[in-house]
C-alpha cells in the first residue's frame, strides 16, 4: 500500500525534474557567455557599471555606448588628446580657407573597416550625410547642422563646407557624430559595430559583456592587448569582489568610492583618480517660481556647501568647478570663488526676494550620488530658511519625462556627461529654462570668431550665465576612479571625452 501510494508521487517529481532539464537543457546561460574561456594570453577583462542597452549610438543616447566603442571600434577624422587638444586621426591633415567655412582634409591611406571595406573619401561623405539624415536620432546630431555640403575631391581628399564659420564644429567632429561608417556596415548597428579602429567587436552579450578583439589589419599601431572584455556589473561590490577573486583585471569608473580605501592599503592594487566630463548640475527651474528670481538662485548658490556635497556624494573624490565646464575644456576658468559658502548672504537674499520660509520641491533621480547630494542640499537650504521637500524619481524613465521633457520641477540634480555640453545646457527650451537672447548672441559670436576670440567669448558667456545669472548650481565634477591589479598598464587616468581608450591597456 505504502509503495503504491509513494509511486505516483515519485513519478510526478521525476517528471517535473525531467521537464526542468528538458526546458533548460544544459546550455543555461549561453546567451550571456563571455569569450574569456578561449582568450589569447595577455587578454584583459575590465569591470564597468552601466551596460549599454545596444551598440547603436546613432539612435540611442547615453555615455555607455561611446565609452566602449569610440576610438576602439569607431574612429573620427580628428581626435582630441588628454589635454583637450585636436590631433589627426583618420585625417592626416586639414586646412581651413580664409572664409572659415571650407575644411579640406587629407585622409590616411590604407585604412580598412573591420569588414574589409576600404576607408575613402566616399566613406566620409556617406557618414556625414547619414548624420544629417533621419537615420540618426541621437540629439547630438545637431552638432552637424552647420554642415552645408560634403564633397569627395578624390579618393583620399574630402572637402566639408559649412553654412557659417564655426569654432565648435571641428571639435564636434571628434565626438560620436563624427564617427566613420561604411555603407555595408550599418545594417545592424544595434548589435554589430563595424569601424576602422584598433579593435573589432568579438561578441556582444546584451547587458553582460562586450568583447573587443585586436585587429591585425589595423592601419595604425596595433592595440597592446589581443583582446579586451568589458564586463558590466550592476552592483559595485560584486565588481570589486570579482577583482579580488581574479576574474577581472580592473574596475573602471567606480561608482562606490567607499569601497576604495581597502584597495589603497593593498599593494596588489593601484587606485587612480582622474577627471571626467560629468558635471553634476543642480538645476533650478529658471522659468518657475521661486527660481525665476535671480536673487533666489543666488541665495541657493551661497547656501549650499559644495565641498560637503562632494564629501557626502563621492567620499570627497571629484573636483569643485564653478560652472558646467570641466578643467579639460579650452575655455575653462576657475569660478569656484564666485559663490563662497555664506549662509548669511543667502538668508538676506531670500528675505529680499520675499520667499524666506517657503517650501520648494526637489526632484531627485534615484541615483546614489544624487540622493546623497540631495540630503546635504536639503539641510543647507533649511538653515537659510528654505524648506525642501524631496521627491524621488525613477531614473531614467520618469526623470526624463517629468523634468527633462515636461519641465515639471523646481529643483533637480543630474550629471551631464557629454563633453563640451555647456551650450546645450543653456539652450532655449532646455529644462534649465535659460531663455536669454544675450547668451545666444554671445554663443553665436563666439562660434563665428577665430580660435583666440572663441575662448575669450566663451569665457564671457559662461561667467554671464553661471555667475551673473546664476542659472544653475554646478555642484562638482564626477571623478574617474579606477582600481587595477598592479601590473595592469595603459588605463587612461582622465577621460576628457566619453570614450574609454583601450588601445594601450596591457598586463605585464
Amino acid at each position: 500500500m505504502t509503495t503504491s501510494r509513494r509511486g505516483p508521487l515519485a513519478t510526478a517529481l521525476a517528471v517535473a525534474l525531467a521537464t526542468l532539464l528538458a526546458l533548460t537543457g544544459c546550455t543555461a546561460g549561453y546567451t550571456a557567455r563571455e569569450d574569456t574561456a578561449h582568450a589569447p594570453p595577455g587578454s584583459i577583462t575590465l569591470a564597468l557599471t552601466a551596460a549599454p542597452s545596444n551598440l547603436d549610438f546613432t539612435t540611442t543616447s547615453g555615455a555607455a555606448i561611446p565609452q566602449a566603442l569610440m576610438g576602439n571600434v569607431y574612429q573620427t577624422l580628428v581626435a582630441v588628446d588628454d589635454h583637450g587638444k585636436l590631433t589627426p586621426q583618420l585625417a592626416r591633415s586639414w586646412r581651413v580657407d580664409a572664409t572659415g567655412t571650407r575644411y579640406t582634409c587629407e585622409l590616411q591611406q590604407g585604412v580598412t573597416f573591420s569588414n574589409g571595406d576600404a576607408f575613402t573619401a566616399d566613406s566620409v561623405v556617406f557618414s556625414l550625410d547619414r548624420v544629417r539624415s533621419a537615420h540618426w536620432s541621437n540629439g547630438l546630431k545637431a552638432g552637424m547642422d552647420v554642415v552645408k555640403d560634403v564633397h569627395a575631391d578624390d579618393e583620399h581628399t574630402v572637402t566639408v563646407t559649412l553654412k557659417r564659420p564655426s569654432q565648435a564644429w571641428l571639435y564636434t567632429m571628434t565626438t560620436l557624430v563624427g564617427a566613420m561608417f561604411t555603407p555595408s556596415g550599418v545594417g545592424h548597428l544595434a548589435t554589430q559595430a563595424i569601424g576602422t579602429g584598433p579593435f573589432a567587436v568579438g561578441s556582444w552579450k546584451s547587458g553582460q559583456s562586450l568583447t573587443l578583439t585586436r585587429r591585425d589589419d589595423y592601419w595604425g599601431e596595433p592595440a597592446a592587448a589581443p583582446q579586451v572584455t568589458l564586463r558590466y556589473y550592476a552592483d559595485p561590490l560584486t565588481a570589486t569582489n570579482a577583482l579580488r577573486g581574479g576574474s577581472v583585471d580592473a574596475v573602471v569608473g567606480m561608482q562606490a568610492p567607499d569601497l576604495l580605501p581597502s584597495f589603497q592599503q593593498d599593494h596588489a592594487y593601484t587606485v587612480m583618480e582622474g577627471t571626467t566630463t560629468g558635471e553634476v548640475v543642480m538645476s533650478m527651474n529658471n522659468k518657475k517660481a521661486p527660481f525665476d528670481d535671480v536673487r533666489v538662485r543666488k541665495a541657493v548658490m551661497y547656501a549650499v556647501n559644495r565641498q560637503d556635497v562632494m564629501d557626502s556624494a563621492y567620499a570627497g573624490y571629484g573636483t569643485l568647478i564653478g560652472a558646467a565646464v570641466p578643467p579639460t575644456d579650452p575655455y575653462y576658468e576657475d569660478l569656484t570663488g564666485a559663490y563662497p559658502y555664506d549662509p548669511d548672504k543667502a538668508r538676506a537674499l531670500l528675505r529680499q526676494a520675499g520667499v524666506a520660509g517657503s517650501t520648494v520641491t526637489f526632484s531627485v533621480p534615484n541615483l546614489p550620488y544624487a540622493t546623497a547630494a540631495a540630503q546635504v542640499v536639503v539641510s543647507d537650504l533649511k538653515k537659510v530658511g528654505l524648506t525642501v521637500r524631496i521627491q524621488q524619481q525613477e531614473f531614467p524613465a520618469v526623470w526624463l519625462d517629468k523634468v527633462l521633457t515636461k519641465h515639471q520641477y523646481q529643483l533637480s540634480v543630474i550629471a551631464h556627461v557629454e563633453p563640451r555640453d555647456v551650450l546645450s545646457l543653456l539652450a532655449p527650451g532646455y529644462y534649465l529654462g535659460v531663455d536669454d537672447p544675450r547668451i545666444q548672441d554671445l554663443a553665436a559670436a563666439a562660434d563665428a570668431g577665430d580660435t583666440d576670440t572663441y575662448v575669450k567669448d566663451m569665457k564671457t558667456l559662461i561667467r554671464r550665465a553661471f555667475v551673473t545669472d546664476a542659472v544653475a548650481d554646478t555642484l562638482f565634477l564626477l571623478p574617474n576612479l579606477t582600481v587595477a591589479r598592479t601590473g595592469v598598464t595603459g588605463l587612461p587616468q582622465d577621460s576628457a571625452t566619453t570614450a574609454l581608450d583601450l588601445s594601450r591597456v596591457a598586463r605585464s
Partner: protein
Amino acid sequence: MTAVRAVARCLLTVFLASIVIFALLRLVPGDPAQVALGVDATPDLVEATRHRFGLDRPLVLQYLEWIGGVLTGHFGTSFVTGQDMSAILRDRTAVTLWLVIPAVLIALLGATAVGTWAAMRRGVTGTVLDVAAQLLLAVPAFLLGVVLVMVISLALGWLPPSGWEVPVDSPGGFLRHLILPVLTLAAVQGAILTRYVRASLEDVLGRDYLRLARSKGLTRGQAVFRHGLRNAAVPVLTVAGVELASLLVGAVVIESVFDVPGLGSLLVTAVGERDMVTVQGIVMVLVAITVIVNLAVELVHGLVDPRVRA
C-alpha cells in the same frame, strides 16, 4: 473533467495577465523613446523614435501583434536591444530555474528535517532551532550572500565570488558557481519553511490518528514519519509553491550579488529602459510558470492527501 477545468482556468489566467501587463506598461510614466534619446532628446526626434518603435500605432493592433507572436513562441524583437528576445528569455528562464528549483528543494528537505526535529523536541533544542530560524528570517538574503562571498570566496578561496558557467562548457565550474547563490536562497527560504513544517506538524501531533498509530505498536518516530509528515505536508507544499513562484523574480537581488544572468536582473534592466517587449515577455513567462507550479502543487496535494482527490 476537473483536469479540463483546471487547464481552462490556467489559460484564462494567462490571457487576462497578458492584457493587464500590456495595459499597465502603457500607463506607467516614462516613454521608451525618451529613455533611448536621453538628455539630448528633442520633441521631433522623440516622435520619430516612437514611430520607429511602432508605439504610435493603435494599441489594439500592438497588442494583437504581440500576443499573436507569443502564441507561436515568438516574444518579439526588443526595440531597445535590437535583439530577438525569444532565445534570450528561454535562456534566462533556464538560469533562474537552475537557481530557484534546487534552492526550494534544499529548503524543503532541510526544513522538513529541522522542523520535524524541533516539533518533536519542545524543550531547549526546539527553542534554539526556533531562534536560529527566526534569525535567518530576519537576515536579508543579499546580506547573507555578501557575507558568504567574503568568507567562503574571498577569505577561504573555496568557491568563485560571482559569475556563471554554462553547464555543458564546464559541469564542475557550473556547480561551483551555483553553490553559493543556491545556498543563500535556500537558507532564507528554508527558515520560512521550517516554521511552517514545525507549526503544521505540532498541529498534527495531537491528532487521534497518531495516537492510534502509536497504539498499533509504532514508535513515536515511526508514527510521525509514516502518518504525521504526510498530513503536515499539504500546507507546507502550498507555501513552497508560492515561494518558488515569488523567487523567480525575488532572486533578482541574489542574481545581482552573484552576477548571475537570470530573469530577475533582465527584468530590472528592461523595466528601467521601458523595454516593453522584454518586460511583457518576462512577465508572461513568470505567469506561465506560476500557473504551472500551482497546478503541480494541486496535483501533489492529491497524491499526498487522498481526500483532495475526491
